[in-house]
């Protein structure tokens, strides 16, 4: 049954945006945890740990996110493991975000001069103490702009979860289109909502970056 695209449909889209934000939040938290581990392992003194973390990044960055979604959602059900779209999306996005955040944060940690580690080590601080009190606080300042930048990518990429039936903004757009047959209006509205989410973050990231350049 074909009906008009009305205000109520717009409200449905907004309601579905919650799930876009929820998936982004979960992916960012999960990816943050994975990313932190990856970044720390990649600057650790133990070579096998560095290789392991490097391999992880290599594999994840070299494979499409969509394939990971399929692996979790369709692949695991072959083995009789029923995976809900939520779990599949949360896992895939955490794996994906973990690799990228790990690389971003590794770069920030390594941007702190070797001499800062030396100064800390010469005062008798342990590796973990050097990280905690000297390296991480300085790297954090560097990390904020690219991290916010990646968050914007993440928001947009959650739209991929639509293909496994996770009802977020894009999937809701598809459903609305199916019942109203107004793809142009609906998808433009969807795009506008994504833009409204991402634009302030992009601006914020730019401002942070400018401030950082002025400060150093």
């Amino acid at each position, binding site marked *: 049954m074909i009906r008009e695209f009305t205000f109520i449909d717009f409200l449905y889209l907004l309601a579905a945006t919650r799930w876009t934000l929820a998936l982004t939040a979960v992916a960012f938290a999960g990816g943050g945890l994975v990313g932190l581990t990856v970044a720390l392992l990649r600057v650790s003194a133990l070579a096998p740990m560095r290789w392991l973390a490097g391999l992880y990044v290599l594999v994840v960055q070299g494979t499409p996110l969509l394939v990971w979604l399929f692996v979790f959602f369709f692949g695991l059900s072959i083995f009789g493991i029923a995976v809900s779209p939520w779990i599949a999306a949360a896992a895939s996005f955490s794996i994906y975000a973990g690799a990228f955040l790990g690389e971003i944060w590794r770069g920030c940690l390594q941007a702190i001069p070797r*001499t*800062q580690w*030396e*100064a*800390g*080590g*010469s*005062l*008798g*601080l*342990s590796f973990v*103490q050097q990280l905690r*009190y*000297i390296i991480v*606080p*300085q790297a954090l*300042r560097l990390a904020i702009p690219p991290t916010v930048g990646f968050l914007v990518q993440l928001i947009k990429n959650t739209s991929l979860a639509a293909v496994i039936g996770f009802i977020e903004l894009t999937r809701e757009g598809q459903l609305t289109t199916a019942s109203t047959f107004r793809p142009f209006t609906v998808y433009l509205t969807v795009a506008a909502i994504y833009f409204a989410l991402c634009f302030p973050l992009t601006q914020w990231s730019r401002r942070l970056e400018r401030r950082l350049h002025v400060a150093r």
Partner: protein
Amino acid sequence: MSLVELNDVVKRYGQHTVLNGVSLSVDKGEIIAIIGRSGSGKSTLLRCVNGLEPIQGGSVTVDGTVVNDPGTDLRKLRQHVGIVFQSFNLFPHLSVEKNITLAPKVVKHVPSGEARRLAENVLRKVGLAEKIDAYPDQLSGGQQQRVAIARSLAMQPDLMLFDEITSALDPELVGEVLKVLEEVAREGMTMMLVTHEIGFARKVASRVVFMHEGRIWEQGPAAATLGSPRTPELETFLSAVLH
């Protein structure tokens, strides 16, 4: 027994030999000035003493601890061996006070109030008591280096290493740092300093060590060694830096 004992130390970077069998012993209270051309291995020698540079041969012993033994807890050793770097290496995100109190608090578990007093004390020694709440980028190079010395002093080390600490400074700021160094020397600190300040070495050092091509080429009491060099290499070096 000597405080620092270097025995036939060899240090290589790949094919390049930086230290080629260096032996040196330093007694408590001695002030050793290490001089020599850049690339002669003098900074490397200093960095071997607190284990910043792993060595490929020989041994380094500080106060009975074998520095190059893989089983040695370098963190423990470094609490007793201070080092001040050419490029200051203050922590830019921390105030002067926090720069100084970080290691005492974290490593030695000195309580906050006591740590603050400790910072005030060492800052007074380097003449910067009023800068306790400043940040490194608000200080001149000379002041930053004096804070770095204070930071090292706050750990109450038995031995201090100074790695060309005036080389990165504008000429007009060198004097204030040397004055602090002299003050530290007068209190009886055992010091090893790599320096280009020959006049300062002559005045303060008890012994001068001249490094050349990764070896100790010549050493002896400061005045005698600098006044009448026995090797042509030291003579050439001295005439080059003094003119």
